[in-house]
């Protein structure tokens, strides 16, 4: 906007760690983005007085000294949003940290400071004509990458997803007075000019800046009555998340948070994935990048990487940038949502973000609250999760941002502040359980402590998808699991053999639901992803088994006889053996179940 008419400067007077104080010349804004020193380290003004500003620097401050210059930017901490984001990896402040193929060995380290990046070129097809009236959020042009191979100057992985150039939300409505012809343009080049009602003229480029801490405006928030399918049975059937919904995944170390998030990122039915690696492991992100560069999206047939934006602030990168990375991520997600896309954001892990808040707050000498976290932790968490929604955009399209946040509670204790506050704001809680993880039962989601508030509103979708007994079966499975927990406690006291047949049967059925339905290997080629059809078929089969087994119990068939039947093992292993689309084998299981039930019934009546 008016970024260049004021260039406030300041000279450093005091520095310690990532915080410095400086004497200003000219007017700074609170939360203004600044660059520090010759390296142009990025920072943000966090306190403002007439004769002193306090700056939080997002990078390694080694070598800074009194006198080092601080240059203002005239705008709040913001990121440049454009079509070049998709398919790439960035740091917490959306600076590219990707490497071109074959160049990794030459330049493997993250160096502090700002570097000028050559803007990428994109192919543009205009969608407006001179004289058209357009307003914020309206489509100006279609943008694509790789239409003509000679245009892709960057030589990096190309994104196949068609994108749109919109009127930025902060521009006034007006009339098109100039529009570029179809062709290849640089990301920062103006391609359209608009005259507003007051006669002011504004240029629109393919990319624009947006302050990360301010939510992008929408026309209307829509109800969430459509599921965000993850392909994971325990999630889609027991604890479903709606499009525009929120879920928290708390779990101690080694319970599989990251694998679960990565699995959902791979197979969920979103158009764009924003993966924020916030204070986590570098090797994991390397693995994710390698895998996403090879795996295909089962829906579009394109590489998963092409629909993914990775924002990486690994645990050894500067802590203060970790705090910003969450906002950067959600801003990028909103940018794609505004184009009418369904976006899913994964944040791994929000606890590291909260710790960054705590660390910075401590350096500012703020009064600590619970667990040493600042008192505003709760409201910051609320702000973040509130930015998830299904919306009608300013341009009239429907889009959504769903947010999944991992939480890493110290000692796996869910009563700590971050877990506690998070669960107040999210619609789903997928609580991970150490005992399940230790038995290598993945996903290690504990069905008794997890919940989803959207289950009721999503039932209609499952009905229309052909699973008419979805709620009944879901309820049946959940009560079974609850009964199991109660009976397991009893079995521990009196022994399993001493329990009545009905209770032994409940334990048997619960075992089947756990092993055949809820356990799903993220690394099995057949089972890593289950379509809703396959989930529905498996759910129905298990429902039939439970009914058949209860019938057999009435006929005095002991549960152990049922467990010995070959059908039991076949059901146990159906997830890993029967691929999607092989409905005939599922029907065969159904027929075998009926036959087995008849055989057992006859054997028992023969015994008598």
């Amino acid at each position, binding site marked *: 906007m008016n970024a260049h008419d004021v260039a406030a400067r300041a000279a450093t007077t005091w520095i310690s760690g990532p915080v410095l104080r400086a004497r200003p010349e000219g007017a700074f804004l609170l939360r203004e983005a600044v660059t520090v020193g010759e390296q142009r380290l990025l920072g943000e003004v966090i306190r403002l007085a007439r004769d002193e500003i306090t700056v939080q620097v997002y990078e390694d401050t080694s*070598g800074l000294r*009194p006198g080092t210059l601080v240059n203002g930017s005239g705008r709040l901490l913001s990121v440049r949003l454009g079509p070049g984001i998709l398919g790439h990896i960035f740091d917490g402040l959306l600076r590219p940290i990707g*490497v071109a193929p*074959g160049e990794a060995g030459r330049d493997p*380290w993250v160096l502090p400071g700002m570097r000028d990046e050559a803007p990428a070129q994109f192919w543009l097809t205009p969608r407006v004509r001179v004289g058209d009236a357009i307003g914020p959020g309206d489509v100006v042009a279609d943008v694509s990458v790789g239409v003509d191979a000679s245009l892709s100057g960057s030589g990096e992985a190309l994104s196949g997803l068609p994108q749109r150039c919109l009127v930025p939300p902060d521009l006034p409505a007006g009339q098109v007075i100039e529009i570029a012809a179809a062709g290849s343009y640089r990301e920062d080049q103006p391609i359209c000019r608009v005259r507003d009602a007051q006669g002011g003229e504004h240029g629109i480029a393919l990319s624009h800046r947006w302050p990360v801490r301010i939510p992008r405006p929408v026309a209307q928030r829509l109800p969430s009555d459509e599921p965000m399918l993850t392909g994971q049975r325990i999630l889609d059937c027991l604890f479903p998340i709606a499009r525009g919904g929120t879920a928290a995944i708390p779990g101690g170390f080694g319970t599989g948070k990251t694998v679960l998030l990565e699995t959902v990122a791979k197979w969920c039915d979103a158009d764009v994935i924003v993966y924020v690696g916030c204070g986590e492991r570098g*090797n994991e992100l390397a693995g994710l990048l390698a895998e996403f560069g090879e795996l295909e999206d089962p829906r579009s047939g394109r590489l998963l990487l092409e629909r993914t934006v990775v924002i990486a602030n690994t645990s050894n990168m500067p802590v203060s940038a970790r705090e910003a990375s969450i906002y950067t991520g959600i801003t990028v997600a909103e940018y794609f949502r505004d184009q009418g896309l369904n976006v899913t954001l994964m944040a791994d892990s929000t606890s590291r973000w909260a710790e960054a808040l705590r660390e910075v707050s401590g350096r500012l000498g703020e009064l600590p609250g619970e667990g040493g976290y600042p008192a505003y932790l709760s409201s910051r968490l609320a702000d973040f999760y509130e930015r998830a929604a299904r919306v009608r955009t300013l341009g009239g399209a429907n889009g959504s941002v769903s947010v999944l946040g991992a939480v890493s509670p110290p000692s796996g204790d869910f009563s700590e502040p971050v877990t506690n506050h998070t669960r107040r704001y999210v619609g789903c809680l997928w609580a991970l359980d150490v005992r399940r993880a230790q038995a290598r039962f993945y996903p290690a989601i504990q069905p008794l402590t997890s919940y989803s508030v959207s289950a009721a509103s999503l039932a209609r979708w499952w009905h229309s998808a052909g699973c008419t007994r979805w709620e009944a079966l879901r309820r049946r499975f959940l009560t079974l699991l609850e009964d199991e927990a109660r009976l397991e406690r009893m079995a521990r006291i009196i022994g*399993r*053999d001493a329990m009545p047949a009905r209770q032994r049967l409940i334990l048997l059925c619960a075992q089947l639901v756990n092993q055949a339905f809820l356990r799903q290997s993220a690394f099995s080629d057949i089972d890593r992803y289950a379509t809703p059809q396959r989930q529905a078929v498996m759910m129905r089969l298990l429902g039939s088994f439970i009914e058949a087994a209860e019938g057999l119990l009435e006929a005095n068939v002991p549960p152990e006889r049922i467990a010995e039947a070959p059908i039991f093992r076949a059901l146990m292993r159906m997830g890993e053996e029967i691929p999607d689309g092989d409905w005939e084998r599922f029907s065969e299981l159904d027929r075998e179940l009926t036959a087995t039930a008849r055989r057992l019934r006859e054997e028992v009546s023969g015994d008598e």
Partner: protein
Amino acid sequence: MYARLTGEDIANRVDGPLLFLRRSVDVGLNEAVEVETADGGVRLGRIAALDQETVTVEMLDDTAGLRLQGTRVRFFGEPLRFDVGPGLLGRVFNGVGKPIDGGPPLAAERSLRVDGLPMKPSAREAPSEFLETGFSAIDLMNSLVRGQKLPLFSGGGLPHDRIAVDIACNARLPGARGGEDFAIVFAGIGIPHASAEFFREEMEKSGALARTLLFLNLASDSSAQRLLTPRFALTAAEYMAFEQGKHVLVILTDLTNYCEALREVSASRGEVPSRKGYPGYMYSDLATLYERAGRIRGRPGSVTQVPILTMPNDDITHPIPDLTGYITEGQIVLDRELHRRDLYPPVRLLPSLSRLMKDGTGAGLTHADHPALAAQLYAAYAQAQQTRILASVVGEEGLSETDRTYLAFGGRFEQDVLAQPDRRDIEQSMDAGWRALRGLPRNELTRLSDAQIESHLA
């Protein structure tokens, strides 16, 4: 080598580990300083804060015996560096990179910042080379891969030193017989003299000392230096891995001493403490060590870390193991009860984990059936442990027949798979695993396919 500036008689105040100097020269944050004492000794420090009049130096050595008058301060003009060169292997250094083996000073080829730089995730090579340690509990159940960081969670009196030595001597790529460009960096952080000596002797016995590099910060050395020891060790490891193309195994012991030093220094700075008095930034600080494991695409070497820590009071929820577990790619937990039963290695399997196992095992890497076998063994052993609890309440007579087969499996598994007198390669480990599974009813083997059961257990 360094553009060194000197300041004389500029010290104004000493307060705990902090030395306040008049700002007489233009120096920057985090740069290193040397303080010369009256008796000619030299103490190391780091610039922790600056304002227009004052330079605040955090001393990495003891401040007792410092005086203000006549003290000379030399400013390095840059952060602390380690001069490394081709002659590193076989040498012994103290905790701050000075040779203590009586040998000549190191011929330096490169001068590297000991803090290192974060690696771009996109420049990392995802680790996938299975590294055979010779222990079934690791190779078969929690496989280690090159570029991984896999800590040992131990306790006082448990044989973690011996396990570390065995791993250092036995580790190799399956199939490879020597000839690998392999190096070991051992960093003793605040360890007793006996442990350092044990490690040196064992490595000498096995003939591995020539490819080993030792950094020793003994229990009697300054605790602030403990914060530097692993950084010097990792700087040397990165140089050997990424400049010289070696596969470097870094053993850091004992990280608990490191964290204690961190707490001590933080407290003396007057910082607001977090859990159990440890500073709130301990997670980030530990990450700057552990994250220095890995591989770089297009460069041949690797840095694999096996940090060892002793859990205070054997408590895995203590902040030190807790934060470590959140950063490292799994953990190998040692168990006192197994140790008392004289099982070696005494690995408590259920809480142990290797996150990168999935990337380094399976067809073409170890064996196509390895992941399924490990998953089945884990599931069965977890069930066996449950059954043990049950049996302790209702007695073995009260158990069902299936439960009794699990009980038998648990004992067999611990004796024949977990415990081992000698090194095993992965094939031998897998054979032991299959043997242990015999005797469990087929219907219970839900993690194995029919084909796997046919070919291994028929």
